[in-house]
């Protein structure tokens, strides 16, 4: 029933899309895996061959299996604990059961989860500081002049330099018998915050300072109050650059976190990598490679999430986002 011409056109469209959208990326990945396999087999280390794709795939499976075993063990632990407590209470009704948490080794996936919420907390805190401060700096040249040298000096500092200081400050100031957060979490989080706030701060400030003069004139003619001026003119106008900053910040946050976790032995993917390195078994390199790919993949996902939020929040739908 469908005229054959449109059908052919449709086919063309689909094939054009699938060449660019699916075939080429798949081709790229296949070539990479091939080169990886060939290259890996030529690199020999004291821990054996450099892990190729096949080894990495096996290690991935073993990590998944390990995780499942651990979960079963955990479940059994809680069942046992409950049974034991019930038994003792049956013997002695006055007995108050103490409930203990399972203390098994965190699996690869536990570490991913830890890293994820740490990075989001650190990034969130950084945004909460950087966006308002950026708006202030962008609005006021004097504030800019006063803060600029400080920003320029702290911006290029590596996370590894901050880490010892943050660790000491957190241990000294966060003293509590029943801590809501673990110290390691706070150390990682603050290090991430300190390192990743700068792109958001600077881009927000630039965006705010670059509001079109015509729009500023509109605001003046309307005699908008300070608050309305900021909310209706300045912030919307700065949103595209603000998001550029936020995306850069989140990328940095993720990189910084892994490094911080490695160095400080704080729970997370970084610690997983370091532990495997110290472990030095024949599986270690394969496992580290799994972690490397996972870190890359999560970083990619985080950026995609920010991009989606940006598409939703930005008024400038003509802006090309990638």
């Amino acid at each position: 029933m469908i005229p054959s011409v449109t059908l052919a056109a449709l086919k063309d469209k689909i094939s054009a899309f699938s060449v660019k959208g699916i075939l080429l990326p798949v081709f790229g990945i296949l070539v990479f895996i091939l080169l990886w396999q060939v290259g890996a087999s030529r690199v020999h280390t004291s821990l054996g061959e450099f892990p190729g794709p096949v080894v990495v795939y096996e290690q991935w499976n073993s990590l998944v299996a390990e995780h499942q075993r651990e979960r079963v063990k955990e479940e059994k632990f809680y069942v046992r604990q409950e049974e034991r407590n019930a038994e003792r209470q049956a013997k002695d009704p006055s007995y108050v059961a103490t409930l203990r948490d399972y203390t098994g080794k965190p699996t690869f996936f536990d570490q991913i989860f830890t890293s994820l919420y740490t990075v989001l907390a650190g990034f969130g805190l950084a945004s909460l500081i950087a966006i308002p401060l950026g708006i202030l700096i962008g609005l006021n040249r004097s504030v800019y002049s006063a803060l600029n040298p400080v920003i320029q000096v702290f911006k290029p500092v590596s996370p590894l330099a901050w880490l010892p200081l943050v660790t000491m400050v957190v241990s000294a100031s966060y003293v509590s018998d029943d801590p809501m957060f673990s110290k390691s979490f706070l150390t990682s989080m603050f290090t991430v915050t300190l390192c990743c706030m700068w792109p958001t701060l600077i881009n927000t400030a630039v965006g705010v300072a670059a509001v079109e003069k015509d729009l500023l004139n509109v605001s003046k003619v309307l005699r908008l109050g300070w608050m309305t001026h900021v909310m209706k003119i300045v912030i919307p106008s700065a949103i595209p650059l603000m998001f550029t900053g936020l995306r850069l910040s989140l990328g940095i946050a993720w990189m910084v976190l892994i490094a911080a976790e490695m160095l400080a032995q704080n729970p997370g993917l970084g610690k997983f990598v370091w532990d495997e390195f110290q472990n030095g078994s024949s599986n270690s390199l394969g496992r580290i490679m799994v972690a490397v790919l996972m870190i890359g993949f999560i970083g990619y996902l985080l950026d995609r999430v920010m991009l989606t939020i940006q598409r939703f929040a930005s008024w400038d739908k003509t802006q090309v986002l990638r």
Partner: protein
Amino acid sequence: MATHLDISHISIEFPTPKGPFKALDNVSLKIEKGEFVSLIGHSGCGKSTVLNIVAGLYDATEGGILLDGREVKGPGPERAVVFQNHSLLPWLTSYQNVELAVKQVFRKIKSKKEMHDWIMHNLELVHMTHAADKRPDEISGGMKQRVGIARALAMEPSVLLMDEPFGALDALTRAHLQDSLMEIQKDLNNTVIMITHDVDEAVLLSDRIVMMTNGPAATVGEILHVDLERPRDRLALANDPRYVDYRTQVLTFLYEKQRKVEPIQAVVKSKKTVTRAKVANA
């Protein structure tokens, strides 16, 4: 009766690295209520500066502006501006753009319902109700300028200031908007100051054309009263000898009496070549 808008002996100097630059010198102009005045002159002659001073966006170095007997200080909605590049907020719809102005001016005077009706009324004046919910990047240049005019009209200004409002539009759209503006003007009878460099536009729309001399230290050169009965029709006027005569007078002023533009450019160019030569030598 006192003058509605009295621009009194204003001069303005801008600081430059080479010392102060006097852009305007002793500009005086009295404008009656309901009068449509055009400022015309070569680009760079400071006509926009006059408008910006009246708007309150610049402060005159000497002299001042009286509006209904009171001195004008700083910008305000009673002197609404239609900017050359529409200056709509790109993140707001046409409706919201006008709403921002209406809320600011009538917040304490009108109820929500009244404000809504007033916004729609002004969009209707410029024939833009159909695109009330469209954002600026979804409508054409002429439509944006219409919304810009609606926003300015919605402030119910004592003086409407238009800074080359149709300068960025193509000839056909411009003619359309000029007709619309005349129609609106017939009903509202606003006091308008319009900057233009289009001779036909000036003659067609104005009651008076103020011709400015070339800068620096530009001032009012000649003033031409346009006594053509309204409503004016561009086609009928095209062959009207009075229209042709007014047009010729303005053209004569611009291209004979004030023909300084090209020599100035030549000087600038030769200066540039000199600096380049210096750079090359260094």
